[in-house]
């Protein structure tokens, strides 16, 4: 069973209701599109449920749309549940009509009927069911109302007990004639492709200038002839209507959706301005909106850091006082001392670092993010930030991954998926690894902030923002392609449900662990091995000219910088250890501290981030970004050193 529908209709709430904790969140093979699956036992059946991405159309604008339509057409789930928002019926029906055109077995879940009722809208469900020819169940996913009925209906459809008589979507007369003509030709000439997709659907897609289908048709025998015919028909349609063919098709489909929706919608009370509407006005207000945004972000960070610090304290004592001694004790009885040390410092400390340093910040971050998402605030933030983000070739939605970058670059890289195109995603990813994450903040504040002064620390932050801006603009010029404008739905404000928030956060935390931990552990083991075998010293010595000559840093900073590749906090921690003192001002001059922090801030992203970059954008790009950042850090570090010397 697959859940399909627009974004913001309560699809994931329904998914959570159905699957509870039996969820697996991963990716579609080979693609950066989230795939959420779960199972449920009902009426003696084991139902596999797949939550398809929230999409508005089955065209080819985004990977999400292609993944969804290929899944529906080729893998043929037994039943598709089309989750529809009752308060936005016309727009949702546009998608329903597209599902019907794919000739899939559909049951509609008419969701958020409670919200629609509050807005004074009542849908005649019986009539709608008749018009569309599919069974409809009213649901309120957040509370679980109607879910059982939905499941029984789904089972009955799968068993064949409810005959489906789906509406055959008919367009305006001459468009319809053209579709049928092309459909006949498809059936005649390309019987092979008709095994995968319905012939009529192929005809419609070709007339919509769908690139993906055109490619598939071209690859078949007789494909080129068919495409030529399609082109002729497209030309006719465009001449007649004066609009591009895809627009004609969309218009007609909307006309059908509109008339169906109007037929079954009763406005019981006239729409009133609700609290949610007023809140929306205030939070996007041209003057008041921005301070509110700053306030929300500040609150977010405060919560995350306070919760994070608290968790770190808890976990550190847990590990250091209880777990690690216990584990090393057990191991010491079986293995040699060096082996134990290797495992201790390498494996265990890697795990400890991941757990005590990364997770305490990430988990609260995810929770706060889910709250902001579910409440509907994020689109408002994107609305306010859109104009500024245009300067670096991104649009409002990029605000989210960039904001995430202040916590940790790993979820921020995944967060780049909100951008629609590859180019936008990579641009956002490239920019966000330069943003100081929590780890780098620890270094800046702990070193420069503490010993040089808060002004210097703030100056570093500011410099970083400038750097992000400048590099963003450069990257924008360098990467070919058209920047995409913002087209984003503004969903109404809603109370987030705690169940949903927790489930989402847990799912994402799990994913973070799967991505980051293996890499951290491997990196940690490698470094520990280098240290124990003594190989670390030749490496550090080879860095000497760069380190002392160009950057003006003492040689002992070499090890922290290398280990910083594993986790950025280690730069500060190891520096303190190696210096043998907590009074770092005895070891480094203020200028050296600033240079050190600057380099730590910009040079190679931590291994977990490189892993995330590789997963989202491919290894080539991940390596390219890492190398670029190292070179940039070295360059800026050296320049800063000389510049600061001049100032002093």
């Amino acid at each position, binding site marked *: 069973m697959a859940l399909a529908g627009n974004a913001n209709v309560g699809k994931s709430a329904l998914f959570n209701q159905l699957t509870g904790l039996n969820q697996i969140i991963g990716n579609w093979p080979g693609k950066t599109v989230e795939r959420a699956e779960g199972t449920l036992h009902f009426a003696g059946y084991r139902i596999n449920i797949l939550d398809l991405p929230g999409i*508005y*159309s089955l*065209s080819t*604008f985004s990977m999400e749309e292609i993944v969804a339509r290929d899944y529906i057409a080729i893998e043929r789930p037994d039943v598709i549940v089309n989750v529809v928002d009752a*308060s*936005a*019926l*016309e*727009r949702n029906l*546009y998608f329903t009509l597209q599902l019907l055109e794919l000739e899939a077995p559909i049951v509609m879940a008419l969701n958020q009927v409670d919200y629609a009722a509050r807005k004074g809208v009542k849908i005649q469900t019986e009539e709608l069911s008749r018009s569309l020819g599919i069974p409809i169940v009213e649901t309120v996913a957040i509370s679980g109302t109607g879910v059982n009925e939905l499941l029984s209906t789904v089972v009955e459809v799968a068993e064949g007990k409810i005959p489906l008589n789906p509406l055959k979507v008919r367009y305006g007369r001459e468009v319809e004639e053209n579709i049928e003509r092309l459909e006949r030709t498809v059936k005649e000439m390309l019987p092979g492709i008709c095994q995968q997709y319905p012939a009529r659907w192929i005809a419609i897609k070709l007339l919509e*200038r769908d690139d993906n289908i055109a490619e598939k048709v071209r690859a078949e025998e007789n494909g080129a002839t068919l495409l030529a015919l399609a082109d002729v028909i497209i030309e006719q349609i*465009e*001449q007649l*209507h*004066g*609009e*591009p063919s*895809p*627009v004609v098709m*969309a*218009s007609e489909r*909307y006309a059908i959706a*509109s008339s169906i929706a109007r037929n079954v919608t009763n406005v019981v009370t006239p729409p009133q301005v609700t609290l949610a509407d007023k809140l929306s*006005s205030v939070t*996007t207000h*041209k003057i008041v909106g921005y301070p509110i945004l700053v306030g929300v972000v500040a609150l977010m960070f405060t919560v995350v850091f306070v919760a994070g610090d608290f968790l770190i304290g808890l976990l550190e004592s847990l590990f250091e006082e209880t777990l690690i001694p216990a584990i090393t004790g057990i191991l010491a009885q079986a293995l040699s001392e060096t082996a134990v040390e290797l495992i201790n410092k390498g494996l265990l400390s890697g795990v400890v670092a991941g757990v005590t340093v990364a997770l305490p910040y990430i988990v609260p971050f995810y929770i706060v993010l889910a709250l902001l998402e579910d409440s509907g605030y994020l*689109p408002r933030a*994107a*609305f*306010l930030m*859109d*104009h500024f983000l*245009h300067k670096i070739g991104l*649009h*409002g939605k990029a605000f989210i991954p960039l904001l995430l970058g202040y916590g940790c670059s790993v979820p921020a890289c995944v967060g780049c998926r909100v951008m629609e195109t590859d180019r936008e995603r990579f641009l956002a990813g490239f920019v966000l690894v330069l943003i100081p994450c929590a780890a780098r903040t620890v270094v800046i504040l702990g070193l420069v902030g503490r010993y040089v002064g808060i002004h210097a620390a703030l100056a570093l932050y500011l410099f970083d923002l400038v750097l992000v801006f400048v590099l963003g603009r450069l990257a924008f010029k360098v990467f070919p392609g*058209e920047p*995409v*404008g*913002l*087209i*984003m*739905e*503004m*969903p*109404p404000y809603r109370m987030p449900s705690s169940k949903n928030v927790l489930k989402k956060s847990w799912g994402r935390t799990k994913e973070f662990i799967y991505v980051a931990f293996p890499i951290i552990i491997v990196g940690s083991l490698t470094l520990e091995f280098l240290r124990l075998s003594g190989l670390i010293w030749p490496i550090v010595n080879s860095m000497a000219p760069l380190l002392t000559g160009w950057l003006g840093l003492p040689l002992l900073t070499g090890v922290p910088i290398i280990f910083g590749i594993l986790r950025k906090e280690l730069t500060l921690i190891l520096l303190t250890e190696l210096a043998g003192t907590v009074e770092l001002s005895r070891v480094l001059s203020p200028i050296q501290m600033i240079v050190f922090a600057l380099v730590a801030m910009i040079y190679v992203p931590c291994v977990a981030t490189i892993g995330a970059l590789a997963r989202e954008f491919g290894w080539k790009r991940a390596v390219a970004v890492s190398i670029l950042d190292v070179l940039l850090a070295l360059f800026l570090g050296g320049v800063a050193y000389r510049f600061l010397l001049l100032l002093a």
Partner: protein
Amino acid sequence: MEVQNRTAKLSEMATELNCSVGELTRALEFAIDEGLVERSDGTLTLTDKGRMQLQEHRERYIHDRHGHGLGFTGRLTKILEGTVRDWRTHWRAKHGFDDSSVDDFYRGIRNLEGHVEDTQNLTSLQQGEKGVVVFAFGGRGLVRRLAEMGLTPGTEVTVVRSAPLRGPIEVSVRGVFLALGYGVASKVFVTRVGRGG
């Protein structure tokens, strides 16, 4: 001149153009002399030359309002551009629209009903005002996405709010609220419907 796909009496036309029948007749005689209008069987119709002139007029109008805007910088860039001779190259080189987008544009304005002067950018609508979408002039992907989100020709759009300094505008269309970036919204052309309420 206006093009509506129906025949009208001279008196009707005069009322709509807000002039006297006498003035209208004189203008039409002039148009006939110029070869823009022809007379046959007592009815006057646009010639091909007339149609082309209309097309150019519309193109120029949209170019001046959309490509350059009405402010000072807009006028300045327009003056610097000079007279455009080859429109297609101009659209491609100076405004970044590829050939297929320009084709779509030409087709759109050819089939436009009513005055091109009645159309305006979505961005020029004030908060609370309504408009009906006429067409969208931009890259094919953008036009298509707008259509899929509900902004098809003939659809009514209400401006809910606009952000400052060329920020995005929020519109209500088909019962849903959409935020459109300024660049996106400026590519959507509407005719105003009258104050919202």
